[in-house]
């Protein structure tokens, strides 16, 4: 088994499992709320339905609106194929480090916001404005928590960071705990989950992501929905990679890959279950409390940085 084939398996797996992950979260939420839920496969059925439907665009929609779904989808997929999920050292992982990964997702967001403004409805502009505002506040917090991690690994390459964590003896680092809390908070915000945004509601005055894609239909909408699901799985994989990478294989042999796959499924499912519990037990924040949440994440990651310098450098 060559590492290139594992790379392809990994990318296809992230793409195909993404709707399942979204379905898993909504099923867990349904069970926690004493409902039966629509089942794990429901997002797949939704996508299939949308791909079959005809696309309708507004009269004055420009090419930005038309091509934005493709750009958003490919940028997200490109980012997903860079993140190692099973194999530590994949051929594509050199292509982009964590900073480039964040920038690829930012590219997707940039075009999504432009598409929101293209039609000229109040909802589109509102979503674009909010999305860009909150992501601007989330980005420094995210990079700060990545900095904390890269300080001990001396690298921003995911492969090197994972190898560093795998090879160093297990110890409790306070800085990592801070970084992890901040990273999870940011991941929740970036994916538009409760308490920042609610992915299941349309036509609420507080919506963000849904407001931008309100005008989309058919395969365009399917691509955007799918990209959002891939992003959720991508962030879960990233958190697993950075904080609990144990089980990932260094060699591309069959048994190693199978074990890594099993452990990855367990870890990601665990993470998504925690997300479902949080979403069930929490209410959505008021819109102007979101900046406080995000600056809270920044402060936590900055504390992580300080604790690294004060507690861990000398020790």
């Amino acid at each position: 088994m060559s590492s290139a084939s594992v790379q392809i398996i990994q990318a296809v797996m992230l793409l195909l499992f993404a709707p399942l992950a979204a379905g898993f979260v909504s099923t867990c939420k349904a069970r926690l709320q004493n409902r039966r839920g629509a089942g794990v496969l429901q997002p797949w059925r939704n996508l299939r339905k949308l791909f079959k439907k005809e696309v309708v665009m507004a009269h004055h929609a420009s090419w930005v609106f038309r091509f934005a779904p493709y750009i958003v989808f490919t940028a997200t997929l490109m980012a997903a194929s860079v993140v190692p999920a099973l194999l530590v050292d994949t051929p594509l992982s050199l292509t982009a480090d964590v900073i480039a990964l964040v920038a690829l997702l930012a590219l997707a967001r940039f075009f999504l916001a432009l598409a929101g403004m293209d039609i000229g409805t109040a909802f589109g502009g509102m979503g674009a404005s909010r999305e860009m505002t909150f992501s601007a506040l989330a980005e420094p917090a995210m990079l700060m928590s990545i900095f904390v991690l890269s300080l001990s690994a001396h690298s921003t390459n995911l492969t090197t960071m994972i190898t560093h964590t795998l090879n160093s003896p297990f110890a409790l680092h306070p800085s990592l705990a801070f970084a992890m809390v901040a990273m999870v908070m940011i991941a929740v915000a970036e994916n538009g989950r409760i308490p920042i945004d609610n992915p299941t509601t349309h036509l609420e005055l507080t919506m963000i992501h849904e407001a931008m894609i309100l005008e989309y239909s058919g395969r365009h909408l399917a691509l955007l929905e799918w990209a959002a699901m891939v992003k959720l799985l991508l962030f879960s994989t990233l958190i697993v990679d950075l904080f609990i990478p144990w089980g990932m294989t260094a060699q591309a042999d069959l048994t190693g890959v199978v074990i890594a796959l099993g452990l990855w499924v367990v870890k990601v499912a665990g993470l998504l279950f925690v997300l479902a519990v949080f979403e069930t037990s929490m209410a959505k924040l008021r819109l102007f409390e979101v900046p406080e949440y995000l600056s809270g994440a920044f402060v936590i990651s900055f504390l992580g940085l300080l604790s690294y310098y004060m507690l861990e450098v000398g020790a």
Partner: protein
Amino acid sequence: MLSLNAALAACVFCTLATMIPVCCSRSCLQRTLLCLLLAITGLLACMAGLAGLLVGGGEFTLPLGLPWLPMHLRIDALSSFFLLLIGSLLLPVAIYSQGYLRGMANIAPLTVFMPLFVLGMLGVVLSDDAFTFMLFWEIMSVSSYFLVTFEHQHVENRKAGYIYLLMAHLAGLLILGSFAILYAASGSFEFAAMREAVISPLWAAIAFLLAGVGFGTKAGMVPMHGWLPEAHPVAPSNVSALMSGIMLKVAIFGFIRVVWDLMGPGDFQWWWGMLVLAAGSGSAVTGVLLALQQNDLKRLLAYSSIENIGIILIGLGLGMLLARFEYPMLSALALIGALYHAINHALFKGLLFMGAGAVLHSTGTRNMEVMGGLIHRMPWTAALFLVACIAIAGLPPFNGFVSEWLIFQSALMAPQLGGTMLSTMIPFSAAMLALAGALAAACFVKAFGVVFLGRSRSEAASHAHEVDHWMKLGMAIPALLCLLLGLSPVLVIPVLDAIPQLLLHTSLSDSVHAHGWLWLTPVGTGRASYSAPIILAGMLLLGGLTFWLLHPKGRTIRRSVMWSCGNPHLNARMQYNATAFTQPLRRIFSGIYQPEEQTHIARPFHTLLTQQVRYIVHIQDMMVQRLYQPVADYVLSLAKRLDRLHQQDIRAYLAYTFYTILFLLALLSIKQSIAAYHFVPLTQGNALSTQLSVTQPRLPVAGLVTGLAV
């Protein structure tokens, strides 16, 4: 010598261009000649820069200038790079001007001052002694004043020009001060001597502060940026492109020349880098926050220039800190990042100003609130403007991302430098860089979205027309360069490598090349890597495949009315506009903005029947308000007090003259007697020259001695 000859030829063509109004009077011919000569100048400057970086520079002494001080010119790696930067934007701007100046009445002032302005910038970059440097610096400042006040019939243009002239001269004075210290230490105006001179730490620090504030003022560093958002919007757009794209970079060049080259990394003190880093972080965040709140397209771009200068300063500050703590490789990385961002900013900001000029040309306004939907009327301008927006937002695969990535890397790789304070300052400034980058993305979503997307908000916008081929070509060149610089950093960085070799005596090219041309791997292979070509190729492949798989062949997409929540009367005024887009940020950062908001609700008939709601928001640059106004007030009150002296009769004036002469004579006789008593030469008594190492004794001024002997 190739590069020097090309550079001199560029200067000659520039000088020739200033003569245009003398040679011909027809406006059309003047314009064509101006653009042709400027384009040749740009091309020659590019050639000179490339030759200087690849082959090597040279020295030349012009038999001009003062009798005892001929003009020294020299091309080294640093000046070659900035020549290349000047040329690569000047050429497209010259092509663009051919279209932009068409139909503009009386362009004679432009034909004189634009080449003079370019000559000033070329001269600053080429100069090898302080006198030549200051001479060309002043040519640059003064000629750009006339360009800013080109449309002087408007009051605000004259006011902007005045503020600009004032601040430019303040900057000139401070720079002169730093050169004076270097002159006192070396005893010569030539840069070669200044490099050798030994300066005491105190005087070095004063020279650094003077140079830093002086060049920082000209570059638009916060809080010395007050002139920039006034001057850039009112100049003609081709001039704004040059001012923002090149002139600010010439100030950065001056800073690097004086601080990094003439004083040198050996003189750096630890707080210098900190100060530059703090100024850079402050400029980056303040600039973009203010840019976000502008509704005037060119003013928005001007504030965004402040942000980008901040990013360059963050890179330079990191480089200075790392050089001080003896990490030359990382320092070289930060320096390369800063320089890369300098050329990137020249290209995309030049392109953005040209795009803003195209919009202004076709709609007649700079106010974003009355634009919208221009992507349908001006498809080429929109596409090229979008390229610049993606690049300036720091998104792959364009060039803005590469330089920000390099600066991030040098910040992240920085090992522990003296103390926790210093160590946390570096990641903190990197976080500020991230904040500035993300806010810039928001800012340019707003700029592009409000101007080009949506539906047109006014008559003028709905009748806009696409610009001509000259202007399109002028904008296409920098757009292409943005993509190329974004895709091929591995090929560009070895070309720039001569600069860290010159300033820091280290080379980056080995580690950059380590993984071949496809992967950019600064400092070590395992540490970080980025491959723009693979990302672009992957995205094109995946995107193309998705499109091909999903798009039904031979069917056009059905168009319909937009969804309006069942309300049939949606109009263009219900769109989100520029003010609405940034409302959340205005609320979040209200402590910084301190917006003055007023809401007027008109209910003429009944308390429940609202007929009209008017919302007025006004945001001022608090920094300018708090810092500049007290100074202006003080100067005004002082002038009023002096004013009394101006209104007296002739006897009073005669008395003043008499007392002044008496006072001066007394001063001279006292000095003379002290000198005679101590048997020392007259000028050696002052504090400065005793502290500094004086390499050559200075003669007393001849006229003074003979006058006293009589």
